[in-house]
C-alpha cells in the first residue's frame, strides 16, 4: 500500500492466521454457554430449543452454593496471604543484593514448574505424617504454595519501577519505615497489589488437582463440578455453572489487565522532560 511504512503494512497471511488462532482457541469454550441454554440433557447437535431451566436448577442447588462459598473463602485467604508474602519478597528481591540471590529467587519460583499432582501428593504425605486433618485449611496451604510465585512475579515489575530515592526522600522528609511504606511504597505499587490479588484468587478458584488431594469433607467448586460429571443428568447444570464462571473470570482478568496498564502509565520516568 502506498504511503504506509514497511512495518505498518498489513499482511493477509498473518490476519488469516490470527483469525484461525482465535477460532481454535475459543470455539470449544463457546460450546459451554451454547449447550447450557439447550433444552436437552444430551450434549449433541441439533439443538433442541432455548431454556434457562439449567440456570434456575443450578441456582437452587444448596450443594453448589456451599462449594462456591468454600472456593471463595479459600480463594480470598490465598489471595491475601500470597500477595502479602509476594510484597515482602518482591521488595527484598528488587531492593537488596542478597548473597545467593539468583538461586534463592529460582527456588521461590520452583512451584511454578513442579507438576501440581506431585505437589498435591507431597503435601498430602506431609499432612498425614504430621497428623493434620484435611480441611479447607490444607487446601489453602496448597494454594499458597502455588500462588505465591505468581504474586511475586506480578509484583516484581512494580517494585522495579519504584525509584528507590522515593523511599529515601520520604525518610529524609521525616517518616519512619512504616509510614514510608503506607504513604509512598503502597500507593505506588497499589495497582500491582490489586493485579496480584485478582490473579491469585483466580488461580486458587480454578485449581482442582491440589484441592482434590487436600480437601476434607468440604468440597471446593472444581471438586463439586468434577463429582457432578459422574451423573449425566447433572451435566447441563454444570455447563450453566461453567458459563457463569467463565463470564466472571473474563471480567476479573480484564479488570486486572486494565489496572496493570493504568498503573504503568502513572509511573514517572525520573528527570524526563515532557
Amino acid at each position, binding site marked *: 500500500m502506498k504511503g504506509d511504512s514497511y512495518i505498518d503494512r498489513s499482511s493477509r497471511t498473518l490476519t488469516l492466521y490470527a483469525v484461525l488462532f482465535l477460532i481454535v482457541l475459543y470455539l470449544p469454550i463457546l460450546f459451554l454457554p451454547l449447550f447450557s441454554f439447550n433444552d436437552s440433557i444430551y450434549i449433541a447437535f441439533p439443538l433442541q430449543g432455548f431454556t434457562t431451566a439449567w440456570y434456575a436448577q443450578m441456582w437452587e442447588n444448596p450443594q453448589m452454593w456451599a462449594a462456591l462459598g468454600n472456593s471463595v473463602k479459600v480463594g480470598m485467604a490465598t489471595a491475601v496471604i500470597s500477595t502479602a508474602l509476594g510484597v515482602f519478597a518482591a521488595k527484598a528481591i528488587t531492593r537488596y543484593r542478597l548473597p545467593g540471590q539468583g538461586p534463592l529467587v529460582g527456588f521461590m519460583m520452583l512451584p511454578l514448574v513442579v507438576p501440581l499432582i506431585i505437589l498435591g501428593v507431597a503435601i498430602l504425605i506431609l499432612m498425614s505424617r504430621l497428623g493434620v486433618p484435611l480441611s479447607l485449611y490444607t487446601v489453602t496451604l496448597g494454594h499458597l504454595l502455588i500462588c505465591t510465585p505468581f504474586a511475586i512475579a506480578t509484583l516484581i515489575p512494580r517494585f522495579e519501577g519504584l525509584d528507590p530515592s522515593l523511599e529515601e*526522600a520520604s525518610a529524609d522528609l521525616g*517518616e519512619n519505615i512504616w509510614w514510608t511504606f503506607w504513604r509512598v511504597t503502597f500507593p*505506588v505499587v497499589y495497582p500491582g497489589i490489586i493485579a496480584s490479588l485478582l490473579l491469585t484468587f483466580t488461580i486458587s478458584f480454578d485449581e482442582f488437582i491440589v484441592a482434590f488431594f487436600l480437601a476434607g469433607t468440604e468440597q471446593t467448586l472444581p471438586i463439586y463440578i468434577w463429582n457432578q460429571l459422574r451423573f449425566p443428568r447433572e451435566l447441563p447444570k454444570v455447563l450453566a455453572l461453567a458459563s457463569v464462571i467463565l463470564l466472571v473470570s473474563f471480567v476479573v482478568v480484564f479488570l486486572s489487565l486494565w489496572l496493570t496498564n493504568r498503573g504503568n502509565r*502513572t509511573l514517572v520516568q525520573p528527570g524526563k522532560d515532557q
Partner: protein
Amino acid sequence: MTQDAYIRIENVTKRFGSFTALGDVSMDIREGEFFSLLGASGCGKTTLLRLLAGFESPTEGEIYLDGDPISGVPPNHRPVNMVFQSYAIFPHLDVRDNIAYGLRKRKLPKARRDEMVDEMLHLIKLPDYGDRRANQLSGGQRQRVALARALILRPKVLLLDEPLGALDKNLREQMQLELRQIQRTVGITFVFVTHDQEEALTLSDRMAVMARGKPLQIDTPEALYERPANREVAEFIGSMNFFEGRVTQADGQGVDLDVAALGRIAAPDGAGGLSPGQRVALAIRPEKIALSDTRPERGHAVRGRIQNAAYLGERSHYYVQLDGIEAPVAVSANNSAPVRHVPEAGEVWLSWPDEAMRVLAE
C-alpha cells in the same frame, strides 16, 4: 579547624566492602554558606552527601552538626533535607501534597499548612501548579518542587545532589541564578554536589575539589582558580598550560626555575616551601597569555609558531608550538578588544606577566 564550623566532618572514612569511598576526610562548612563538592564521578562527593543525609553512616570518624554528633541519627530525625538527583517527586501526589509531605508530623492546622505551601509555591515561582501531578511537570519544574518540599521544613542544611544535571543548558543557567537567589532569601546552608566546575564556580561561596575519596583543596572559587594548590586541582578547574621544570634557587619570595622551552625564568613562589633541585610544573592559564608579532617590552616572552586556531565568537583559541616541548601551548584571546588578524601557521610572540605564573610541586 575554624571556630565557625556549622558542619564539622572529622576524620571520616567510608568503606563499602574493600572499596574506600572516603578516606579520612576532614572539612568544615560554615553556617549560611553555599558550599559545593566538586569532582569527577566516583570521587566520593555523593557518598559524603549521603553521609550528611544519614543514608549511610561513617565507617570511622564523626560528623557534627551545629555542635552535635549526628552519625547515629537516622535520616528521618535529622534537621537536614535533600534534593535528589532524580528529584524523587512522589508520583501519586499532586504538587501541593508533595510539598506538604514532611509537614504531617508537625500537626499544623490546615489553614497554616496551606499558607506555608502557598508561600513555597510562590518562592519557586509555580503558584498555579499546585494541583499538577509529577508526570505533568517538566524537569525544571520537578526540580523546583523538590526544592520547595525540602525547604518548607526549614532544615538546618539543604543537600543538593547534582540537581541541575538533568536539565538542558539554558534552563540550567537560569536555575543556577534562581538557586543562588533562593539560597540568599532563605539563608539556609546549602551543600551542593556537582561534577560541573562552571556550576560550582558560579554558585559557591566555598567549594571542595575532590578526587579519590579526599578533598584536594577547599577554598573560594576565585582562590581555587587563581591559586590552585596542586597540579590536579589546576588541571581539573579550567584549562591550564604546564611547563615541566626544576627549581634552581629559592629564597622564600620567589624561585628561579629551569623550565623546558622557556629556559631560565624567575617566578613567584605562591605556595611556598620550594627547595632547589625540586621538580615542579610552571602553570599558566591560556587567557593570561598575550599574542603579538614583535617581542613585547615587558613581561616574560617566548617565540612560537601557531599550529591551530579556533574562532569561538567571543574568544579565539590558538595552539602555539614551542621549540623544546611537544604539546602546543593553549592561548585564549578575547575578541572584544580590537585584534589584528593573527595569521595561521605564523610566527608569534607569547608573553605574560609575573602574576600569571603559578609554580606547583610535582
